């Protein structure tokens, strides 16, 4: 009898001790995550909802927020500058497929047995870690019509280069070239990691089956790096829709005839130069919506094509 009693109390104690342990664990778990959660709520979530509400008001940042319904959105739809900046923003995204293609080719090249592989990797990655502000300043000078590096090089080939940043037709391509140059090292590195993670046996088996180089690429490499392509497209679109720094530094007035002004640059102007906070909030809501729709669409399409592969 005594023995069993003791056992029971022991078990009880154990349960108690366990639940006490569990409580301690919960407390610790909450204590460790509470700071980032509060940070997220205070610095992201609340401002986001204020922004949403502000887009329906005539807020100027100082005075009252007066509710004006859809007035901001209505004038936004008639605002030709908004449409122009939206067009420019999408135009600049042409650099995304170009950059991905170049970086994929570079990664394929670097996955072979090449002399100086490590050095190449480092060199291609240097622009990635460099500050965008300094790089924009450098390229602004490089695009100088008379003495810039770009036109000097073109001159060697007998081409008379334009005054890149002052020309309506060349200012956007100029920004695209710079963005590709700066970003190609990052995508290359991710592709390289993906290519190297493809098991060699896949290729050997394909070769035995008589697959040529293109078929090996089409049916092995490309499907294997698809998740990386997907990741890069999504992050590049999210980043590309927020282009600001290079535009603000290289073309402080938005370029000739506003031809390099982006949505975020325009939003900035409206909010912090004209103090039209309500209107700028409406722009930011539309921008956020566009980003959300494109990303959701990407995820949807990615899922569908994955099914097809199976």
């Amino acid at each position, binding site marked *: 009898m005594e023995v069993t009693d003791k056992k029971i109390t022991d078990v009880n104690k154990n349960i108690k001790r366990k639940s006490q342990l569990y409580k301690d664990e919960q407390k*610790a778990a909450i204590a460790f*995550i509470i700071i980032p959660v509060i940070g*997220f709520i205070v610095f992201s979530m609340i401002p986001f909802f204020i922004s949403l509400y502000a887009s329906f008001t005539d807020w100027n940042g100082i005075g009252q927020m007066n509710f004006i319904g859809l007035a901001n959105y209505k004038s936004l739809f008639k605002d030709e500058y908004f449409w122009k900046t939206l067009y420019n923003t999408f135009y600049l995204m042409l650099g995304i497929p170009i950059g991905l293609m170049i970086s994929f080719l570079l990664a394929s090249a670097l996955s072979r047995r090449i*002399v100086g592989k490590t050095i190449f990797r480092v060199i291609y990655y240097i622009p990635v870690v460099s500050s965008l502000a300094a790089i924009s300043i450098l390229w602004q000078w490089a695009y100088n019509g008379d003495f810039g590096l770009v036109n000097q090089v073109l001159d060697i080939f007998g081409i008379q280069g334009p005054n890149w940043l002052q020309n309506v037709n060349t200012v956007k391509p100029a920004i695209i070239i710079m963005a590709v140059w700066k970003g190609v090292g990052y995508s290359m590195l991710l592709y390289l990691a993906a290519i190297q993670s493809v098991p060699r046996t896949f290729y050997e088996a394909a070769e035995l089956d008589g697959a040529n180089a293109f078929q090996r690429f089409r049916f092995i490499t490309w499907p294997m790096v698809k998740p990386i392509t997907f990741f890069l497209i999504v992050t590049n679109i999210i980043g590309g829709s927020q282009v600001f720094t290079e535009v603000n530094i290289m073309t402080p007035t938005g370029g000739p005839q506003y031809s390099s002004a982006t949505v975020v640059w325009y939003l900035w102007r409206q909010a912090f130069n004209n103090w039209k906070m309500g209107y700028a909030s409406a722009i930011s809501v539309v921008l956020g919506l566009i980003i959300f729709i494109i990303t959701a669409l990407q995820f949807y399409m990615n899922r569908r094509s994955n099914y097809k592969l199976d």
Partner: protein
Amino acid sequence: MKRESKVSNTIIFFVLLIGAIVMIAPLLWMVSTSFKDKSGVFSLPPEWIPAPFLTDAYERLFELDQLWSGIKNSIIVSFSVTIVGTITSSLAAFSFAKLRLPFKNLIFLMLLIGIMIPYPSIMIPQFVIFSKIGWVNTLFPLIIPGMFGNITMIFFLKQYLSNVPDSIIEAAKIDGAGYFQIFTKLIFPAIKPAIAAQFILWFMGAWNDYLAPLLYLNSPEKQTLQVVIANLNASYAIQTDYPLIMAASVISLIPVLTIFIIFQKQIIESVALSAVKG
């Protein structure tokens, strides 16, 4: 692969070499310009090795007060944000990865959705809130939010922690170790390389930040280095003082490039790893 022939590898090597020249030439040209005099930049064809080789631009640059205040402010912001933020982020990653808590995954998902909110969508209310409490033209709006942690870092450390077996934590728990102790004694040493790589990446990001500092800092002595060099660019370009502008850009790039060259192996590995895992 067996098929790799010497000829094709040699051709590829030269293509990569040309690519590498394209990548590095603008940066070398920036350095070269910074050692010229004002009229030397207009010589045709351009000189890659300036003759005469002058440090005049750097001398004039070092006399500018805003350069030194810019460096000082950038150091204050980057270090305080990344050191404190790394501690909060890695504790949170430990909790999300290893501790039991109801709705833990839901909270984590909420944070992840949070990084999808673009900064331009929240910067206007953030600016007004910070200006109401008198933080505009101080470094606080750049430092304080970052100290609450970095969701990207939490995400990657959480991934990395999934390789650490639960059993060592269970063992420590039974030995009666506190959770903070478990973190400092077991978790931190186990994921130190990942923390270091993430810390470096974040530091470089904080050093290079331009948008938020531009938004919050108005007076020259308060600005961070990136804003200072952008302003120098705007004001000195009119005088076509390109050597000074390029010298300022070189100075702003040196810290990050030095860090990159020293830790290039870890940085590249960590970025590549994040791709395969993430």
